[in-house]
């Protein structure tokens, strides 16, 4: 982007996370086509939405026969956490003008995690940029491969691809869970609420409802 110093740690962190997580585009491509989306539809979602959880939420809802408006609303509410990430990153990245328009597309779980893990602002910016670039390229290429491949594979479930989404979310969440007992309780509460609500609410909504689990934690102090 500009004259950022390329120190080894943020570059290594960024590439590691970007390439590893980017590969799960394979699972998204497979899930999208399995849910009834076309290959171009899967690719447009990865290119322009570029936020895995929302993409998975949309295809999940479409695949489960959910109403498109409800499916979009659910996926958007999930994308709302990127707004909160942006709030934290704005101060760290200090981007203005057209550069901000580009940087905004990269505000997701992984880029935020890498940027916030860096010791100083310069490393944070490098980490954000490297994660964004490597993840964007890998995610889009593997979405294409996964979507095309699924047509030939037949049943993606036979390759265990359906577990990649939850396993990726778990890996993202893990450092926070292992660091805090309070967050473990919150995660358990959110998971339980979503599971209990699933039979009664349209696809996508139970996950949103789980956000209410933060209220008791917020109010506690």
């Amino acid at each position, binding site marked *: 982007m500009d004259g950022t110093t390329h120190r080894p740690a943020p570059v290594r962190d960024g590439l590691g996370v970007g390439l590893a997580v980017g590969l799960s585009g394979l699972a998204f491509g497979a899930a999208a086509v399995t849910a009834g989306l076309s290959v171009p539809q899967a690719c447009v979602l990865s290119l322009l939405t570029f936020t895995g959880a929302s993409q998975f939420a949309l295809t999940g809802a479409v695949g489960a026969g959910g109403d498109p408006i409800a499916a979009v609303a659910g996926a958007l509410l999930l994308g709302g*956490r990127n707004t909160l990430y942006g709030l934290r990153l704005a101060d760290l990245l200090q981007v203005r003008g057209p550069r901000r328009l580009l940087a905004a597309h990269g505000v997701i779980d992984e880029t935020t995690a890498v940027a916030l893990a860096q010791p100083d602002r310069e490393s944070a910016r490098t980490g954000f940029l490297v994660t964004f670039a490597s993840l964007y390229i890998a995610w889009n290429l593997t979405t294409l491969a996964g979507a095309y491949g699924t047509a030939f594979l037949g049943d993606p479930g036979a390759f265990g691809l359906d577990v990649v989404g939850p396993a990726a979310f778990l890996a993202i969440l893990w450092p926070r869970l292992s660091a805090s007992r309070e967050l473990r309780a919150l995660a358990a509460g959110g998971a339980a609420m979503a599971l209990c609500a699933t039979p009664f609410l349209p696809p996508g909504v139970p996950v949103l409802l789980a956000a209410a689990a933060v209220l008791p934690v917020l109010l506690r102090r």
Partner: protein
Amino acid sequence: MTLWWAIAALCAGCYALKLAGLAAPQRVLDHPVVRRFAELVPVALLAALIAVQTFTEAGEAHFDPARTAGLAAAVVALLLRAPFLVVLFGAAAVTALARLLLG
């Protein structure tokens, strides 16, 4: 065509949400409740996603032994501090193997 409209709406909406955070005024950033909320909400949502994607099927609670075994493999890999990619491949491999064995 309806699906394309849904996709267009999601693309535009998700981008707007990302930009809104980066463009928010400083005083919002400094609010402790906003910071706390930003830290907590993803934990609840991601945990809910894990639960729903693992233990439900077509809007019903559903126990899939193979998928559960895959997620358990992910937990073991994470406890052993395995790299991200190993966690994902391990989970998929265990799920695929379990499906093969369980039929």
